[in-house]
């Protein structure tokens, strides 16, 4: 099978081995630094990967994303600050357990559960993706547009606290993507006579601005608070830091069930790790026999979100590789890597670049093992080291790196300007509760969506009716609209409930 030959190639390539190891370590560290996400680090390093072999570049960023998701648990447990949004669920039981002097135990549960989740997700991806690619090859432009439409609507309505703002974020992402030359006719659009805008807005500086510079702005706003490590209420013993099989045994079924929850959510575009982690936590709590311990340091309360969180990683690559639809922000960033190296993603990827795809999967599997071993024995040390990083040096350094990274993509100062403006825009979006993830993912989807829409209308004898005549297309459009309606109704109900509560500060979101 292809995965075994890819693994054999990986183990005989020292450059790839070092790359995977470095990615696992750096992702873990980046994910553990509160405020600095793996997505931001990947966006910043993306232009640098242009100078590397495509598989090396993809492997580095892919593994970094995986270990970054795990690294968030270190911050959640040690600093009571989630390193990633998803690890906010881990914090619920991780931090209380750490306060009891059981930091080592908490970190080990998080590590093992992350490995189980990530491995499960990757296995489902590796053995299921061939089937998805074969189905995708049978789809035509109307079906593709319907899938893009559904992705737009689902991402916009599910991410964030407001459906209207989510839809607006997605629409703004599409708008920015349309600036430049029409890819089919070459006609300039929305350039207002500017020569620089005629080449369009590049994805790489936009992402660096939104995710990296926007985060620097946010950190400036929070005064760049120093990371403070936990001070436990109890003196920890060797038994507190160790994890026995008897202690982890009850967590195993929780971790496996949560892995499948995370894998299913991972396939759906826009859902992401945070949704998976909280859904798994809720499900685990519902079925728990020791409900009174959840929220106070239950080991299962760490296992559930961590395995779900990491199980998202692999399956979220399925829509990306087969349909070109990124399921997450990290997926959207990886689209940039494919673009930089001139690789067309979609169902034909498995025909033209099969070795690359399975090489990536093999790197992912090795990456899981790497961060698992490093995390099991060294997560606490990583946490101690992070406390020593001077925050007032870290974020200015990130700022300077973002500028030169944005320039490196196309050696263009205009890209640096785009990055700077996107940084301000990204900060503003966060302040106004718009969704930067919906914005970026929609930006990425626009080219494919427009091409498939125009092709569908050109081949249609009934104009827009073609989307109703083709059952798969109609089904996806209906799915998108149903999701939108259901999400809107649930938010309106929540808003109504809040309005009826006797609180002086009420928010209402639609």
């Amino acid at each position, binding site marked *: 099978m292809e995965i075994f030959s890819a693994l054999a190639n990986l183990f005989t390539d020292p450059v790839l081995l070092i790359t995977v190891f470095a990615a696992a370590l750096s992702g873990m560290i980046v994910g553990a630094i509160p405020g600095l996400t793996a997505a931001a680090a990947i966006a910043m390093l993306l232009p640098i990967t242009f100078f590397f072999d495509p598989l090396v570049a993809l492997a580095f960023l892919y593994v970094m994303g995986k270990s970054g998701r795990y690294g968030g648990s270190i911050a959640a447990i040690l600093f009571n600050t989630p390193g990633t949004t998803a690890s906010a669920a881990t914090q619920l039981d991780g931090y209380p357990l750490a306060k009891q002097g059981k930091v080592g135990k908490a970190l080990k549960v998080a590590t093992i559960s992350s490995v189980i989740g990530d491995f499960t997700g990757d296995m489902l991806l590796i053995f299921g993706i061939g089937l998805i690619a074969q189905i995708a090859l049978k789809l035509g432009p109307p079906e593709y547009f319907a899938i893009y439409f559904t992705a737009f609507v689902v991402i916009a309505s599910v991410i964030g606290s407001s459906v*209207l703002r989510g839809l*607006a974020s997605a629409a703004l992402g599409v708008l920015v993507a349309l600036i430049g030359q029409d890819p089919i006719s070459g006609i300039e659009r929305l350039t207002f006579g500017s020569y620089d805008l005629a080449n369009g807005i590049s994805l790489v500086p936009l992402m660096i601005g939104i995710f990296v510079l926007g985060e620097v702005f946010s950190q400036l706003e929070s005064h760049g608070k120093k990371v403070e490590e936990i001070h436990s209420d109890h003196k920890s013993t060797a038994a507190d830091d160790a994890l026995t099989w008897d202690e982890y045994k009850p967590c195993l079924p929780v971790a496996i069930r949560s892995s499948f929850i995370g894998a299913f959510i991972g396939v759906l575009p826009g859902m992401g790790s945070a949704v998976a982690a909280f859904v798994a936590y809720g499900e685990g709590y519902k079925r728990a026999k020791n409900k009174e311990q959840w929220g106070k340091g239950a080991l299962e309360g760490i296992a559930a979100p961590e395995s779900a969180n990491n199980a998202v990683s692999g399956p979220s690559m399925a829509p990306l590789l087969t349909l070109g639809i990124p399921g997450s922000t990290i997926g959207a960033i990886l689209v940039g890597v494919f673009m930089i190296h001139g690789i067309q993603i979609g169902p034909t990827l498995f025909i033209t670049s099969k070795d690359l795809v399975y090489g990536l999967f093999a790197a992912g599997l090795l990456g899981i093992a790497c961060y698992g071993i490093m995390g099991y024995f060294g997560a606490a040390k990583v946490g101690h080291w992070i406390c020593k990083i001077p925050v007032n040096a870290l974020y*200015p*350094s990130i700022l300077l790196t973002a500028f030169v990274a944005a320039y490196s993509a196309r050696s263009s100062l205009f890209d*640096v*300007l785009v990055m700077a403006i996107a940084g301000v825009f990204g*900060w503003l979006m966060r302040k*106004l509760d718009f969704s930067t993830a919906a914005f970026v993912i929609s930006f990425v989807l*626009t080219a494919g969506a427009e091409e498939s829409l125009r092709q569908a209308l050109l081949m249609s004898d009934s104009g827009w009716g073609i989307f109703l005549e083709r059952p798969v297309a109609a089904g996806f459009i209906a799915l998108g609209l149903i999701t939108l309606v259901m999400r809107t109704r649930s938010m309106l109900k929540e808003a109504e409930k809040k309005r009826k509560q006797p609180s002086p500060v009420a928010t209402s979101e*639609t």
Partner: protein
Amino acid sequence: MTGIDKHSVAIGIGLIFIGTGTMIGSMQIEIYDPNEVGARLFPTMIATFLMGLGLLKTIVGFKNSDNVWSSSWVSLPPQFHQILQMTVLSLSYVWAIGAIGYLLATAVIAPLAFALFGERRPLRLLLVAIIAPAIYHLIFFEGLGVFPPQGEYIDLLNLFRGY
């Protein structure tokens, strides 16, 4: 005006404004056949969608008279002046790279960035001014082979290379 969700109204009006601008831009796109499925289709759709969303958000804002927290049209965050400084710094950095080259621009901007984040020791700021441009130049322009941006008025690279 009282009794309205002013943030929502402001956002709604902003979206209408953006949508209108997009529609104006879309109308300037050349089309050769009014029935052709061409370059104008998607921009027009997005413009209409943005205007519709903006209208809906504005209506929601006016209807939401219970929302007492939104008492002002614009509420500035407490650290707004620092954000403004960072914005000016970022845009100045872009201009400076084009005007005086990467090395000099970074030597000027890097200590300012560190100062914004609270570093006040003069010796450290001086070290940053020297080390930061050197490190980034070595990694990106020498190590990775990225072609360095040239300053329009002066460029230290030209002096170092004897141009």
